[in-house]
Every structure is written in C-alpha cells, then in structure tokens.
C-alpha cells in the first residue's frame, strides 16, 4: 500500500533521540526553574534551544515513520489512535485548565514561576502526539501478542 510516511528505519533512532532530549529538556527546566526562583530570571541557552528543537523534530520523525509493513489496517489503527489521542488529550488539557482556574492566586503565581509548567498545560501538541504514538504502538503490540498466543 502506498503511503506518504518516512521509512521505517528512522523510527527507532528518532524515538531514542526523543526520549533523551525529552529527559534533557525536563532536567534543564527543573535546574532553570531553581536558578530563576533563587537568582532571578534566566534566559534560555543555545543548548536548551537546540535540545527543545531536537525533541520536537525527533518526535515528528518518530510518529511520521512507517511501520515495517503498512496496509489498510495500519491506517485504520492510526486513525483510531488519533481519535483516542484527541479525546484523552482534550480531556486532560480541559481538566488541567479547570484545576488551574480553581487554584488560589498565590498557588497560580507559584505555578507560573515554575518553568516546568510547559509540561503542565502549555504544551498540548506534545501530549496529543505522545498519546497518539503510545495508543498506536499498544494496538500493534496487542495484536501481535494475540497472534503469538494463538500460535
């Protein structure tokens, strides 16, 4: 079946790059927050910008890489995963926003000061994409497991 996805060989290296850069972004955000809280505002370093760009780029390559074999069932599973990601992601973002609105002012200001807040509600796309990818991979894994169990 014809598809417009990247070759499968890109998937694993891109996923490893994403995991490493995601951890680096998280660590960097925590360190940066601590220094910002105690020493005033800090600006992003070139390294931080590079790692953030790498994180998004590797995530995009991961999700747009084809499986070993692509056919109509894979397309159907991708569509179902995208629908699931939208439902869960939208619900998650809505709940987090409601919690944020209900927070007392002091707590909200503390949250704003916390630079890791981008992992709280400021980064909807990354949540949706991760949920989509996990849902799709779980579906594929589950199907293969059922096939092996039956053999």
């Amino acid at each position, binding site marked *: 079946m014809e598809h417009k996805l990247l070759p499968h060989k890109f998937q694993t290296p891109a996923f490893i790059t994403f995991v490493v850069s995601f951890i680096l972004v998280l660590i960097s955000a925590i360190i940066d927050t601590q220094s910002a809280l105690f020493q005033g505002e800090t600006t992003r370093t070139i390294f931080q910008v590079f790692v953030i760009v790498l994180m998004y780029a590797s995530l995009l390559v991961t999700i747009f890489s084809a499986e070993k074999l692509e056919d109509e*069932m894979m397309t159907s599973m991708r569509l179902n995963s995208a629908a699931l990601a939208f439902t869960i992601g939208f619900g998650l973002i809505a709940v987090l926003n409601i919690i944020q609105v209900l927070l007392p002012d002091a707590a909200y200001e503390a949250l704003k000061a916390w630079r890791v807040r981008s992992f709280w509600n400021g980064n909807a796309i990354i949540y949706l994409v991760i949920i989509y990818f996990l849902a799709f991979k779980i579906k594929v894994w589950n199907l293969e497991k*059922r096939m092996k169990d039956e053999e």
Partner: protein
Amino acid sequence: MKNNIRIERARLRISQQELADRLSVTRQTIYAIEAGMFNPSTLLALKMSELFGVSVNELFSLEEDDYKK
C-alpha cells in the same frame, strides 16, 4: 459481521502469510479479519472474493447485532 475467510483459506490450503502476500496486506490484517477484529475495505473484500472464487456475500455476512448499530 462474521466471515468464512478461515474456512475458504483452509479449502485452498494456504497459510495466513500466503494469503496476505497474495492480497498485498500484512499477516496481522488477515489474522484480525479472521478474528473479527477488523472489517476490510470494499476493495480488499472484492480482492478476497476474486481470489477464493466466491461472492462477497458468501465470505462476509451480517449478524443480528450489526442491525442494531
């Protein structure tokens, strides 16, 4: 929706992988169709019909629950 793919495949004595190869799909897809986990497209159903030499209605049939959906 139920189907007779497994029976027709046994009649022709071909494996899931062979059928998948002939239809240009994955073995997972054949397994999922046989297990009733996935409904194939009209195109794939017609290809199967041609390959097995039976009509689509003989391969796939509706169940009571399908009318309630």
